[in-house]
């Protein structure tokens, strides 16, 4: 027991005295969460657009007014001629242009049909699609207002509702993603590096030829990063609730229990990495290539798994983060309980046991 305590004290000295690494360990989740939560979001706000109003009548004025008042668009310039449209795009300042045909109101009132053209800069296809959706929605909304006044015989009105994330906030995907990534990175990479460091320095040789049991060495290496991971979970949850305004719908206890299980899974993966690498660089490379890439690419955090080729879909099943992100999304955002996520929890548990078994099998009691 005294051995374990002394070893833990030593580990905390290592971590606390390396101020720069400590700052990264504790600061990284905060920075990542804020960047993904605020700066990098799929939402489009205040996009610069150009308006070419060839009609200049009451209706177009009202529509333009509606567009201007929405938080999505900012009218950068008003054009007079069709030729100016392309030029305006080439300056790179505008993302979309809205062109009204001549005699817009007349055509609408008498021919029951008027044309408005929405042109978007599709160098960024997602953004272009979003802008067109927004613009169409605004125009449709205006049209709906018109229709209410003079009733049409047959209309189908669609009523959409965005469940669980009504404001389509980016934070709803970034919080589970950042948790999946940060916890894996800190638990697995830092644990493996700190174990391999002992090998590289030659101190492992002494630790092996000492009465200290090898599993005690591993436990002492794992506990500090377990604690740091818990601190990170707390900061991420506090930030996401109070700063990003993301409520925890489900049971906090269930969320914490599954997070602890995920941390265990990551720690055991870290131990596994330490048994197959002899240098800190190798451990870092394996962690980054073996963890970061799959988490970002295959966990469903950045790209939807359903859109992937079959082989990648199969591969994604082996990424622990995928299951964890499903759990967090379910518990945190949808508010589902144990009955819906027991399968994912079981998979994480199985992975943990698997990693630990291989580690134990591969752990070298000799050099």
């Amino acid at each position: 027991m005294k051995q374990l305590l002394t070893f833990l004290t030593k580990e905390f000295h290592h971590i606390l005295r390396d101020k720069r690494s400590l700052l990264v360990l504790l600061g990284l989740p905060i920075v990542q969460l804020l960047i993904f939560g605020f700066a990098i979001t799929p939402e489009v706000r205040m996009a610069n657009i150009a308006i070419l109003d060839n009609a200049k009548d009451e209706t177009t004025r009202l529509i333009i007014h509606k567009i201007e008042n929405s938080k999505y668009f900012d009218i950068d310039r008003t054009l007079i001629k069709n030729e100016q449209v392309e030029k305006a795009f080439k300056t790179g300042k505008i993302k979309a242009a809205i062109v009204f045909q001549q005699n817009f109101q007349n055509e609408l009132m008498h021919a029951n049909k008027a044309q408005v053209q929405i042109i978007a800069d599709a160098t960024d296809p997602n953004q272009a699609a979003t802008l067109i959706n927004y613009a169409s929605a605004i125009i449709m909304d205006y049209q709906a207002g018109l229709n209410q006044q003079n009733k049409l015989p047959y209309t189908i009105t669609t009523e959409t509702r965005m469940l669980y994330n009504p404001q389509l906030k980016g934070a709803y995907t970034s919080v589970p993603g950042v948790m999946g990534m940060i916890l894996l990175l800190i638990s697995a990479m830092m644990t493996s590096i700190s174990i391999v460091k002992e090998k590289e320095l030659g101190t492992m040789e002494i630790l092996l030829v000492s009465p200290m049991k090898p599993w005690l060495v591993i436990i002492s290496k794992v506990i500090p990063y377990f604690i740091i991971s818990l601190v990170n979970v707390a900061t991420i949850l506090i930030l996401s609730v109070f700063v990003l305004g993301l409520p925890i719908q489900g049971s906090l206890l269930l969320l914490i229990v599954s997070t602890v299980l995920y941390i265990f899974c990551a720690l055991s993966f870290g131990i596994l990495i330490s048994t197959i690498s002899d240098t800190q660089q190798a451990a870092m490379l394996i962690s980054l290539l073996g963890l970061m890439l799959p988490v970002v690419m295959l966990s469903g955090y950045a790209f939807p798994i359903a859109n992937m080729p079959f082989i990648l879909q199969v591969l994604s099943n082996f990424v622990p983060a995928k299951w964890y992100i499903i759990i967090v999304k379910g518990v945190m955002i949808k508010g589902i309980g144990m009955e819906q996520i027991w399968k994912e929890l079981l998979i994480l548990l199985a992975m943990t046991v698997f990693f630990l078994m291989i580690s134990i099998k591969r752990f070298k009691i000799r050099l």
Partner: protein
Amino acid sequence: MKSVELENIVKTYAAEKSIVTAVDNVSFSVEEGELFGLIGPDGAGKTSIFRILTTLLLADKGDAKVLGYDVVTHYKKIRDIVGYMPGRFSLYQDLTVEENLNFFATIFNTTIQENYDLVADIYRQLEPFKTRRAGKLSGGMKQKLALSCALIHKPKILFLDEPTTGVDPVSRKEFWDMLKRLKAQGITILVSTPYMDEAKLCDRIALMQNGKILQIDTPPNIVNKFGKNLYAVHSENMFQLLIDLRTFQQTASCFAFGQNHHLTLTEDPLSITELEEYLKSTNHLNTTITKIEPEIEDCFMQLMKSPSPKEIIQ
């Protein structure tokens, strides 16, 4: 009971394309309370033997026992009772002197206070810096701290792999004094060193080269077995002298050795006068030829030079 027993130990490593034999059929034993030295240059196989005995490596062939326990089957028992200081022993650079010593004391189930008298002589010099980080110590100080850490748990048998490499002469002497005190307390010590001058401080030594033991005996016996007259030759142009001596027909061996060249002759002592005349003819100034007592290093050079049995067969 013998403290250490090795029987026909062979250890090979797979290198690129070839197999390197690091330990080649080595057998020796160390008595209880003995200070036994493995003497040899880098690559002689010293570290491999240490690692086999401390249960860190498995030998390809042969048996080894430490304090009666087999190194393979009873490795756990051995790990509890031996003390080991690896060659590339490095401390935790970001821990202070005191924290390092305290850590290693606790790992070995003891405290600094309990065995303070064992390390007192060396640790006393470190005490003014005990709150300093190990990484900020000078090279010699680091080594002293490492020595203290290896000794702190007063083991029954101590394995020291090149403990004095990179240590200043004063600290080396202090260290060997400390080994003598440990030995007086009944601790068996197996030490390796590339320094020949440290060899004579051991009770018995094994001279090693290329994984083989050239000779095992007490230092005086090894010197006695030299069996030839040894001469120290000196002149003003030492480089030319070495070339000239090696071309001299009756030269059996000649090595540069500190300030002099150490020389043995094939027909001794008849040719000594011939040598004097030969050197005169080669225009060397202030030539002195003195008969001297051989040292361990002379014996080692001689053993290295004598052909191995294999070469005789060829």
